[in-house]
C-alpha cells in the first residue's frame, strides 16, 4: 500500500508560487548584466542584400553579433541541423534571426533594434500545404517534404470491393499558439575561460545543452544549463529555447557580460513555434451493419521553414490517425512539408490532436451514412484487448472503451438530452447539441524512442540524511516535483516532506530526457521509483538499516552511510518493458508501451443570431492507469480541455505573408474564466505494470478530444457539418448560410 501515491500531496513549490517568491528567469539579475535583443527578417523568403545601421544611435556602446561571431556550427542542433542560429544569406521565413544586439539600457536597446535596417532581395515564397506539395517553389530539399510515413495493413483493394458504403471527407486544423503566460527568456554567462552557462525558462535542459555545445564547439562539461521556475510550456518550450539560449550566450561570449534575453509577448507569439496546421483526407469503407472495413488516411502537416521536430510530430499524428478502432485494412500516408512560415513545433498532443480531430469528425460522418448513432457506430468498432491496431500492435493491456463510452454517456445524460434537443431546437434561436469523441494517446516516446533516449534518473542521500531526486525532468506547472517526491517517499517508506527534488542543472542531474510526450510521470517516475528502491536496498544490505524501519531510522542510516562511504546515490537507466518491439522501417510494431484511453462528451449551445458557440457542459472520462495525485491529475485534464476548447472555438492565428499578425493577447483569443463550462473529470484506473505504482502518461491526452466532441455537438445542434477548426462565429455563419442558400 502506498501512503502518498494516489493522494493529493500539496504541490512542492506551491508555497513559493502563491507568495510570489518563486523565481522565474526575468526575476533574476546578475551583476553587470546587460539586455539582449534580436533583429529579424521581415520577408518570408529571399536573400540578405545588406545591413545598415541608422545614425543617431551610439552603436559603439552596443555589442553586435552576426553569424560570423559563432565559434562552432551555425545551426540549432536538434534532429537535422537545417535551422541556422543566425541567418547570413538565405531567408526562409519572416521571423528569422539575423543579428543580435546587447546594451545595458533596455529602452535604448529597443530603439537600436528598430534602427538596424536589413535590405533583402525577395524570392517567391510558399505558404500552403497544397502549394508546397505541388512544388510551386522548391524551398526545402528536393521536394519540400521533411518526412513521410506509410502505414499499411491488410488488403485495401479487396476491402473497397467488399464495401457496402464508402465515405470520404477532408478536415483542416489551424495553427495554435501555446500561450504559456510566462514568455520565453534566458540569461547567459559565457567566455572562453569558464565556458557557457545559461539559466532560463525551458522544458528540456539537455536539448539546449546539445545545441550550445555544437554552436560553441565546446566539450560537454564546459556547457551548463539550469532551468529556472518555468511559467508554462505545453510544448512551446521544448525546442525554441535552444535558439534563445544560443543567442544570449553569443552576446555574452562577445560582450564578456551576463546577458538577459526576455521575449515580449508579441515576439514570443510571432517568432516561436506553434502547433502544426494540418489537412487530413479520409476515405472509409464500411459494411451495411456498421463495421469498419478499410480506412485510407492522407495526413499532411505544415512544418514551416525548417525541419525541427516535424518528423516526430508527424509520426505521432500518423500513428494516432486511425484512433481507438479495430479495422482490418488500413493505409495511412503521413507527410510533413515546408512552407515559408516560422517552424511549427511541439504543442501538447504533438500531431495527435490534428489527426484525431479529423478522425472523430469523420467517424460521425460515417455513422450518419450507415444510419447509426455516433455512440452505436463507435461501440461496434472499438478496438478490444488482444486485437491489433493499425500499426500492427497487439493491444495486450486491459482496455474497455465501451465501458468508458457508457459511463461518459450516462454522466453527461447524452441520450435524454439528444432526444430533448431534437424536440426543442426547431424554431428556437438557440440550438443545443451533444457531441462525443473517443480516442487514445500513447504515453512516452514513440516506437524505439525511449530506447534511443536511454534516460537516467537517480536518488541520493545528502549528508544531513535528506533524500534528493535527481533528474533533468522539469517542473513546468504539471507537477513533476510533487509526483517525484510522492513516488520516492513511497518507495523508500519515508515522509513526503523529507524529499527534495533537485533543480534541473545539467552539471548536477543525469539526463532523464526531455519533459515532453506524457513521459515524465510514467517513464522518468518509474526510474525514480527504481532508483529509490535501489538506494533502500543498498542501505539494507549495508547493515545501517533493518526492515521494518521508521522515517527517523532511515535518516540516521543515510547519515551513517554517507559519513562512512562519502556518498549514497542510486542511478537507474531506462530498460524497455519486455516484449516491446518496433520496426522503424516498416513502421509496424508496438508504437507505445501503453495508452491513455478516453471518451469525452461536449454539450453546446449555438446562438443562431450571433453564430457563437458556447460549451455548456463537458464530461471527460479517461483511463490513465494509477492516478498519482488526484488534484494535480484533475488539474492537468481540466487545463488540457480548456486548451482544447480554445483550439475548437477561439484560437485563430491570422497569417499574412507567413507572419502571424494577431500576435497580441487582445487579438489571439484564449478562453477566460467567463468562457469555459464546468469541466467534469472522471478517472478509471487500470494500473500499468511498467509505470510507477501503475501510473501511465496523462498530460497530452486531454488535448485530443475536446475539438472533435465540440464540433460534433455543433453538427447535432445545427445540422451543419463543419470540417475545420477553429469554428469561429464567422466560419459557422458561412457554413449555415451555405446550407440554407
Amino acid at each position, binding site marked *: 500500500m502506498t501512503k502518498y501515491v494516489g493522494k*493529493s500531496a*500539496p*504541490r512542492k*513549490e*506551491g*508555497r*513559493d*508560487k*502563491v*507568495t*510570489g*517568491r*518563486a*523565481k*522565474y528567469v*526575468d*526575476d533574476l539579475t546578475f551583476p553587470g548584466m546587460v539586455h539582449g535583443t534580436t533583429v529579424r527578417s521581415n520577408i518570408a523568403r529571399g536573400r540578405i542584400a545588406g545591413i545598415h545601421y541608422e545614425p543617431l544611435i551610439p552603436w559603439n556602446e552596443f555589442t553586435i553579433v552576426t553569424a560570423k561571431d559563432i565559434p562552432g556550427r551555425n545551426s540549432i542542433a536538434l534532429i537535422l541541423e537545417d535551422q541556422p542560429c543566425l541567418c547570413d544569406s538565405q531567408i526562409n521565413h519572416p521571423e528569422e534571426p539575423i543579428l543580435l544586439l546587447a546594451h545595458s539600457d533596455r529602452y535604448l536597446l529597443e530603439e537600436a533594434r528598430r534602427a538596424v535596417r536589413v535590405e533583402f532581395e525577395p524570392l517567391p515564397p510558399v505558404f500552403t500545404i497544397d502549394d508546397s506539395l505541388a512544388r510551386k517553389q522548391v524551398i526545402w530539399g528536393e521536394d519540400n517534404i521533411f518526412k513521410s510515413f506509410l502505414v499499411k495493413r491488410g488488403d485495401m483493394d479487396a476491402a473497397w470491393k467488399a464495401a457496402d458504403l464508402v465515405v470520404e471527407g477532408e478536415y483542416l486544423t489551424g495553427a495554435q499558439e*501555446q*500561450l*504559456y*503566460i*510566462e*514568455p520565453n527568456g534566458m540569461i547567459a554567462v559565457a567566455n572562453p575561460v569558464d565556458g557557457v552557462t545559461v539559466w532560463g525558462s525551458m522544458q528540456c535542459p539537455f536539448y539546449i545543452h546539445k545545441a550550445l555545445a555544437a554552436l560553441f564547439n565546446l566539450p560537454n562539461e564546459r556547457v551548463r544549463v539550469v532551468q529556472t*521556475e*518555468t*511559467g*508554462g*510550456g*505545453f510544448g512551446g518550450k521544448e525546442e525554441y529555447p535552444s535558439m534563445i539560449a544560443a543567442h544570449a550566450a553569443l552576446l555574452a561570449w562577445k560582450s564578456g557580460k551576463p546577458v538577459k534575453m526576455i521575449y*515580449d*509577448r508579441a515576439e514570443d507569439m510571432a517568432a516561436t513555434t506553434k502547433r502544426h496546421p494540418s489537412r487530413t483526407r479520409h476515405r472509409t469503407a464500411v459494411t451495411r451493419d456498421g463495421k469498419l472495413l478499410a480506412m485510407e488516411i492522407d495526413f499532411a502537416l505544415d512544418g514551416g521553414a525548417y525541419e525541427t521536430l516535424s518528423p516526430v510530430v508527424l509520426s505521432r499524428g500518423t500513428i494516432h490517425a486511425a484512433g481507438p478502432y479495430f479495422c482490418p485494412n488500413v493505409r495511412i500516408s503521413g507527410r510533413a512539408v515546408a512552407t515559408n512560415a516560422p517552424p511549427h513545433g511541439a504543442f501538447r498532443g504533438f500531431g495527435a490532436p490534428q489527426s484525431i480531430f479529423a478522425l472523430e469528425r469523420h467517424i460521425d460522418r460515417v455513422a450518419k451514412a450507415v444510419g447509426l448513432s455516433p455512440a452505436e457506430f463507435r461501440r461496434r468498432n472499438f478496438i478490444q484487448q488482444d486485437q491489433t491496431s493499425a500499426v500492427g500492435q497487439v493491444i495486450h493491456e486491459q482496455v474497455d472503451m465501451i465501458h468508458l463510452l457508457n459511463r461518459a454517456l450516462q454522466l453527461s445524460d447524452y441520450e435524454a438530452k439528444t432526444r430533448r434537443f431534437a424536440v426543442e431546437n426547431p424554431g428556437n434561436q438557440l440550438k443545443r447539441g451533444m457531441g462525443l469523441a473517443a480516442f487514445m494517446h500513447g504515453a512516452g516516446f514513440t516506437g524505439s524512442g525511449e530506447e534511443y533516449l536511454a534516460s537516467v534518473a537517480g536518488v541520493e542521500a545528502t549528508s544531513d540524511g535528506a533524500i534528493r531526486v535527481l533528474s533533468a525532468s522539469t517542473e*513546468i*506547472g*504539471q*507537477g513533476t516535483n510533487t509526483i517525484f517526491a510522492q513516488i520516492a517517499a513511497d518507495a523508500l517508506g519515508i515522509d513526503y516532506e523529507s524529499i527534495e527534488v533537485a533543480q534541473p542543472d545539467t552539471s548536477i542531474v543525469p539526463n532523464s530526457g526531455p519533459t515532453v510526450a506524457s513521459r515524465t510521470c510514467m517513464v522518468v517516475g518509474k526510474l525514480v521509483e527504481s532508483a529509490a528502491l535501489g538506494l533502500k536496498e543498498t542501505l539494507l544490505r549495508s547493515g545501517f538499516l533493518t526492515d521494518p524501519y521508521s522515517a527517523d531510522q532511515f535518516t540516521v542510516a543515510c547519515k551513517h552511510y554517507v559519513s562512512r562511504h562519502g556518498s549514497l546515490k542510486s542511478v537507474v537507466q531506462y530498460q524497455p518493458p519486455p516484449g516491446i518491439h518496433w520496426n522503424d522501417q516498416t513502421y509496424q510494431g508496438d508504437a507505445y508501451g501503453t495508452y491513455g484511453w478516453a471518451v469525452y462528451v461536449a454539450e453546446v449551445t449555438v446562438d443562431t443570431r450571433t453564430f457563437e458557440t458556447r460549451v455548456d457542459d463537458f464530461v471527460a472520462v479517461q483511463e490513465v492507469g494509477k492516478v498519482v495525485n488526484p*488534484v*494535480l491529475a*484533475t*488539474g492537468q485534464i*481540466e*487545463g*488540457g*480541455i*480548456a*486548451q482544447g476548447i480554445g483550439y475548437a472555438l477561439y484560437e485563430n492565428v491570422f497569417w499574412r505573408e507567413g507572419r502571424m499578425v494577431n500576435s*497580441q*493577447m*487582445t487579438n489571439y483569443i*484564449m478562453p*477566460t*474564466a*467567463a468562457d*469555459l463550462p*464546468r*469541466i467534469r473529470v472522471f478517472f478509471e484506473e487500470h494500473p500499468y505494470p511498467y509505470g510507477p505504482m501503475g501510473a501511465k502518461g496523462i498530460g497530452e491526452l486531454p488535448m485530443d478530444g475536446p475539438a472533435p466532441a465540440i464540433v460534433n455537438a455543433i453538427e447535432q445542434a445545427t445540422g451543419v457539418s463543419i470540417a475545420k477548426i477553429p469554428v469561429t462565429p464567422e466560419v459557422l455563419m458561412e457554413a449555415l448560410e451555405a446550407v440554407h442558400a
Partner: protein
Amino acid sequence: MPEAGEKVTVACSINEKRVTLRAFPMERLLDVLRRDLQLTGTKEGCGEGECGACSILMNGELVNSCLVPALHAEGAEIVTIEGIARGEELHAVQQAFLECGGAQCGICTPGMVLAAVNLLDRTPSPTDAQIRDGLSGNLCRCTGYMRIFEAVLHACRATGIHK
C-alpha cells in the same frame, strides 16, 4: 518644464511601507516595482493589460501595473503579492490555492491571488458568475480555471463567510 529624459520623484506606500522612488514619469509601475524594489512577484505576461499577471492593488482597487505610469503612484497605497501573507502565515486565499490546486506553473498566480483577494473584499460571498467575472481579467493557461474557482470558494468557507 523638465526636458524629456528627466526622472521624477514619486512618494507612495508599498505593502505598508513608505517608499520614495525615482522614475521616468511614463515608466510602467510594473518595471519600477520589479527593478527598483525587487518586488518580482508581480509578473509581466503580455504588456497590454490583457493577462492580469501584473495585477496589484492600488488604493484598494485591482489594477494592471503594466498600464499604470509611475507618476500615478504618487500618494497611492499599493499592495503587491509580497504584501498579502502576514509573515509566514498565508492569506486564506493563498492557503486555498495551495490546497485546491489553484496554482500550476505559478506565473499567473500572484495576479490571480490578488484578483481573488480583491473579489472577496468586494463580494464576500460570491456566486459562480461573480467569481468568473471577478477573475476574467486574469488569464491562466494551465488550470482551465476550475481549481481556481474551487480555491476561491474554499477560501470563503475557510473565512466562514460563504453561505
